[in-house]
C-alpha cells in the first residue's frame, strides 16, 4: 500500500478564498493510500517546503501531491524540495488548484468538490509514479551555424573565439547576406561593407571555423549535443583549391546579360560570376542554367582563360555528414516584392522599386556607382516618394506585424538621396514613425529638420504613370484626410520583411516550430528568446522576426553564449520523461512485435531497431528501440503501439488509466 502525502496550499487568498482548503485536506485523508494530509498558507515558502520534507521523513512517504498552483509554475520547486528530503523528485506531482480551479470558479461547494477531484487524480497518478533518473548524454562540441549573413557570421565568430569548432553554412556562393547589399547603415551612416567585410574575412580565416558556402542543410537527425547533419555542397564547377580568384574567367565569359541577384535585378552578371567584388570566398560559381557549356554543349572560354586549370564542368554536388552538438539558425529574411501590390501597378512600372533595390542604387559599389538613377531611363530623379509600411501591418497582405526596420531605412534612404541630390524633393508617406532605438529618433528628426525630407502621414491609395511621371495619390491624415497628389520620378516601397524562402521546409526538417507567418518560433517570447523548442537549436537574427543590425548582432552573441554554455559541460543531463519499449523475461523479451508502425509516427526519428538473439546467436526477434537521447517524450508512439509495448515515463499507461478511473 502506498504512503502518499497531500499538501494543500492556500496560496494566500488565491486558492483559499474560493476553495475550502482545510476541507480538501480532510477529504484527502479518506483516500486509499493517503497517510498524511495537511494544508498551509504558502506551500512554496520555506516553512511550507519544510513541512513537506518533515512529513516525508517522519511518515516515510513514498509519494507527494502538492495541491497548489500550476505545475508549470512550481513543479521544479517542489520536486527539488522532495529530493532534498531523500525522495526521488519524480515521485512528486502537483494538483493545479489555482489556475484550473480557484481562479476560474466562484466560491461554491462544487469548486471545493472539483479541487478534491483534482487532488484525487494526482494521488492516483503518483501512486504509480516510478523513481526516475536523469538521462546523461555526451556532447559533440562543434556548432553548426546556418546562414552566413551578419547574424551567422557574428554567432560563428563568438563561438569560435571561445575555442569551439564551428561549421558556418551559407546557401549562396558568398558570405554577407543582406547586409552586404546595403549602402550605408542607420543611424550612423557608416558604410555597410566597410564594417561587414572585415568580419567576413575573419570568419573565413578563423582556425575554428569551417566555411561551407553554396551549401544547404539537407537532413538533420539526432538531438541536443548529438546532431547528425547532412549537408549538400552544391557544385560550383570550380576546383576551389586551385582557384586563385584572379577573375580572368569572368572577363572571358560570353554570356553577359543575366539579371544580377545581388544587385536586385538592377545590373547584369555573367554565367560564371562572383556575386560581388568583396565576396568571401572569392571563388566564382558557374550558373549552369545560363552557361553555354551546359545549355548548348559548347563554349569553354573560361577553361581556356583559367591559368590554374580550375574549371570543373564535371563536378557534382556532394553530400557531407557532420556531427554537431548545437545549431544556430541565422537564415535571415526576404522582403516582399513590389509586384505584390495591385494598387501600385503589380510591378509594371520599373521606377517603383523596393528598399533593397534603392540600397543598390545608393551603394558606391552598386550598378550605378552610387548615383541614384531611374531604372527605366537612367535619368536622375528630381522627386522621389518613399512609402513606409508597404505591406506591413496589413492583414490583407497576410502581414499583420510591423516590419520594424522600414521607418529607419526609409529615413536613411530619403536622407541619402538628399545628400546626393540636395535640390531634389523627397516625400515619405508613413503610418506611424517607429524610431525606438539608440539615436534613432534623432536620426529621423535630422532627415526631416536638417535634410528637408517631407513626411506625410497617410497611406497611398494608388500610383499610376502619366506623361513619364508616377502620379502618387494619397491622403494627409494630419490635415483631416486632405487628398495629396505628387508627381514623382521614382517611388521606393519599404516592403514588408518576410521569412526567407524555404524556411518552413527547413523548420520541418529540423523539427522547430514556426509562428503563423513562418518565422521561427522561440521557446518563450520573453524568457527564452534565442532558444527554440527543440533543445540545442538556437536563433539569431531576422529568421525569428524582423530585426535591425544591432539587434541581430546582439542576438547572435546571445545564441553563441547559449552554445558556449552548452559546450562548457562534458555531459548533458536531460529530463527522463521519455518513452521506452518494455522488456519481458524470455522467451517473450518484449511485447513489441516489431511492426515498426511507430517508427514513422515519431517526430524525432528516435525509434530504431534492436535484435534479440538466442543463446546460439540465432536471430530470435527484431523489435523497436527508442533512443532516450533523441526522444522528447511526446508519447505519439505510445498511442500508436497496439500491443502497448511502448510506455512513456511520467505519463505512463498505468498513471493515465488511474487518473481516468479516479474520476
Amino acid at each position, binding site marked *: 500500500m502506498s504512503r502518499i502525502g497531500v499538501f494543500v496550499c492556500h496560496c494566500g487568498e488565491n486558492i483559499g478564498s474560493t476553495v475550502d482548503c482545510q476541507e480538501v485536506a480532510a477529504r484527502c485523508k479518506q483516500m486509499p493510500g493517503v497517510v498524511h494530509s495537511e494544508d498551509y498558507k504558502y506551500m512554496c515558502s520555506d516553512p511550507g517546503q519544510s513541512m513537506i520534507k518533515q512529513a516525508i521523513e517522519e511518515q516515510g512517504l513514498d509519494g507527494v501531491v502538492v495541491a497548489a498552483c500550476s505545475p508549470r509554475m512550481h513543479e521544479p520547486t517542489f520536486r527539488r524540495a522532495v529530493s532534498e528530503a531523500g525522495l526521488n523528485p519524480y515521485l512528486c506531482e502537483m494538483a493545479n488548484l489555482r489556475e484550473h480551479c480557484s481562479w476560474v470558479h466562484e466560491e461554491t461547494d462544487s469548486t471545493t468538490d472539483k479541487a478534491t477531484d483534482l487532488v484525487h487524480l494526482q494521488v492516483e497518478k503518483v501512486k504509480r509514479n516510478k523513481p526516475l533518473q536523469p538521462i546523461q548524454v555526451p556532447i559533440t562540441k562543434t556548432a553548426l551555424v546556418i546562414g552566413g549573413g551578419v547574424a551567422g557570421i557574428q554567432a560563428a565568430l563568438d563561438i569560435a573565439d571561445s575555442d569551439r569548432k564551428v561549421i558556418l553554412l551559407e546557401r549562396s556562393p558568398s558570405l554577407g547576406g543582406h547586409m552586404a547589399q546595403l549602402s550605408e547603415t542607420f543611424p550612423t551612416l557608416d558604410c555597410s561593407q566597410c564594417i561587414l567585410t572585415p568580419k567576413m574575412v575573419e570568419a573565413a580565416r578563423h582556425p575554428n571555423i569551417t566555411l561551407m558556402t553554396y551549401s544547404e542543410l539537407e537532413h538533420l537527425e539526432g538531438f541536443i549535443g548529438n546532431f547528425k547533419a547532412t549537408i549538400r555542397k552544391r557544385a560550383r564547377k570550380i576546383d576551389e583549391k586551385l582557384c586563385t580568384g584572379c577573375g580572368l574567367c569572368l572577363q572571358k565569359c560570353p554570356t553577359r546579360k543575366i539579371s544580377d541577384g545581388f544587385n536586385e535585378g538592377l545590373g547584369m552578371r555573367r554565367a560564371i560570376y562572383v556575386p560581388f567584388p568583396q565576396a568571401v570566398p572569392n571563388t566564382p560559381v558557374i550558373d549552369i542554367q545560363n552557361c553555354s557549356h551546359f545549355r548548348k554543349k559548347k563554349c569553354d572560354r573560361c577553361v581556356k582563360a583559367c591559368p590554374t586549370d580550375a574549371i570543373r564542368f564535371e563536378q557534382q554536388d556532394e553530400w557531407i555528414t557532420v556531427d554537431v552538438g548545437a545549431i544556430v539558425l541565422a537564415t535571415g529574411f526576404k522582403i516582399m516584392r513590389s509586384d505584390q501590390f495591385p494598387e501600385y501597378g503589380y510591378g509594371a512600372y520599373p521606377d517603383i522599386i523596393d528598399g533593397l533595390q534603392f540600397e543598390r542604387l545608393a551603394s558606391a559599389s552598386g550598378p550605378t556607382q552610387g548615383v541614384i538613377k531611374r531604372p527605366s531611363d537612367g535619368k536622375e530623379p528630381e522627386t522621389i516618394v518613399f512609402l513606409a509600411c508597404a505591406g506591413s501591418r496589413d492583414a490583407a497582405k497576410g502581414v499583420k506585424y510591423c516590419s520594424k526596420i522600414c521607418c529607419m531605412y526609409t529615413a536613411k534612404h530619403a536622407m541619402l538621396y538628399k545628400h546626393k541630390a540636395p535640390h531634389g524633393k523627397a516625400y515619405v508617406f508613413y503610418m506611424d514613425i517607429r524610431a525606438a532605438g539608440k539615436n534613432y529618433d534623432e536620426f529621423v528628426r535630422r532627415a526631416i529638420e536638417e535634410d528637408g525630407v517631407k513626411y506625410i502621414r497617410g497611406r497611398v491609395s494608388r500610383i499610376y504613370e502619366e506623361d513619364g511621371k508616377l502620379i502618387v495619390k494619397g491622403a494627409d491624415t494630419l490635415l483631416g484626410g486632405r487628398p495629396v497628389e505628387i508627381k514623382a520620378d521614382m517611388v521606393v516601397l519599404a516592403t514588408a520583411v518576410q521569412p526567407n524562402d524555404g524556411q518552413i521546409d527547413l523548420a520541418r526538417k529540423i523539427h522547430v516550430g514556426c509562428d503563423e507567418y513562418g518565422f521561427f518560433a522561440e521557446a518563450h517570447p520573453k524568457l527564452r528568446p534565442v532558444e527554440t523548442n527543440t533543445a540545442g537549436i538556437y536563433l539569431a537574427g531576422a529568421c525569428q522576426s524582423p530585426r535591425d543590425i544591432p539587434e541581430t548582432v546582439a542576438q547572435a552573441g546571445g545564441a553563441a553564449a547559449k552554445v558556449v554554455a552548452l559546450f562548457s559541460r562534458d555531459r548533458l543531463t536531460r529530463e527522463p520523461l521519455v518513452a521506452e519499449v518494455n522488456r519481458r523475461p524470455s522467451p517473450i523479451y518484449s511485447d513489441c512485435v516489431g511492426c515498426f508502425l511507430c517508427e514513422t509516427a515519431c517526430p524525432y526519428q528516435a525509434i530504431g531497431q534492436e535484435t534479440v538473439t538466442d543463446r546460439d546467436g540465432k536471430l530470435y526477434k527484431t523489435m523497436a528501440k527508442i533512443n532516450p537521447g533523441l526522444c522528447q517524450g511526446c508519447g505519439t508512439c505510445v498511442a500508436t503501439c497496439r*500491443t502497448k509495448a511502448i510506455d512513456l515515463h511520467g505519463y505512463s499507461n498505468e498513471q493515465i488509466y488511474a487518473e481516468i478511473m479516479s474520476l
Partner: protein
Amino acid sequence: MEALRTKAKELLAQGEVQVVIGYEAGTAGVRRPCFVRTAESAIRLVWDTNCIGNLAGYLTRPEIKRFGKPAIVANNAVLRSLLQLVAERQLQQDAVLALAVAQDGVVTELPTAQAVEDYLAISPGGLSAADREKMEHLAQLSREERWTFWQRELERCIKCYACRSSCPMCYCGHCTMDCNRPQWVSVPSHALGNLEYHTVRAMHLAGRCVQCGECGRACPVGIPIHLLTCYAEESVHRQFGQQAGTRAKLDYALGAFRPDDKESFIR
C-alpha cells in the same frame, strides 16, 4: 484445380518449398485450410469458389513457419494480407511463394512481394458488393438506429476471439486486450467489454485491414464484425488515400500526416 495440384507437387518434389498452404475438402462441402508437405499428398488440395477463407494468418504462425519455406494458395485477400505483412516486417520480401489461382484455375507463381504488388495492380480485391451494401445501409440509418443495431449485434459476442485469431493482421503476440496493467479493455464479454473490444479492434485495423471479411466469417454467433474493421479501413482510404495491402513498403496512414489534412470537426 489440376494445375494447382501439379504445381504443388512439382514445388514440393523439387524442394523449392517445404509446405504448400492450401484448401482441402472438409465437413459437408466446407473448404478448410490444409498444409501439404509431400508431393504425394498434393492430391488433397482443392480449388473452387468455396475457397474464400484467408489463409495468410498461417504465414506468421510458428507451427507453420517451422516447416520451412511456404507456398500459399492465394486469392486476392491472401495476396493483400501478404503485402501488408511484408510492409509490417512480419515477413521477408521473398519468404513466401504465392500461388495466385485465377477463376479458370490458371496458377501464377508470385515469388516476391514486388510480384504480388504487380499482380494486384491488375486485379485488386476489396470490399465485397454485399458488404458495401450493408455498410451503406447502416450509414443511412440515424445515429440512434446505428447504436441500437450494434448493441444488438455485440450483445451476442462471447469474446471467443475467433475474429482476432482468424485475422491475418492480428499477429501481435501480446494483444491490447491482454494488457492488464492497466486493463484498457474490460475482459468480460459484458456490454461494455464487448463495445470496447470491437472498437479497439477496428481502430487497430484502421489503415491495416485488407477487408477479407475473415473475422465476420469466423464469428460463431454471426456478428458482422468485419463491417467495423472494413469501415475503419474505408475511412482511412477515403480521408488519406492509403489502402492496406496494396504496397509492400509500409505506408501506414496513422503513422503519417499531411499538414493540410482536412477535417471539419475540430474547433
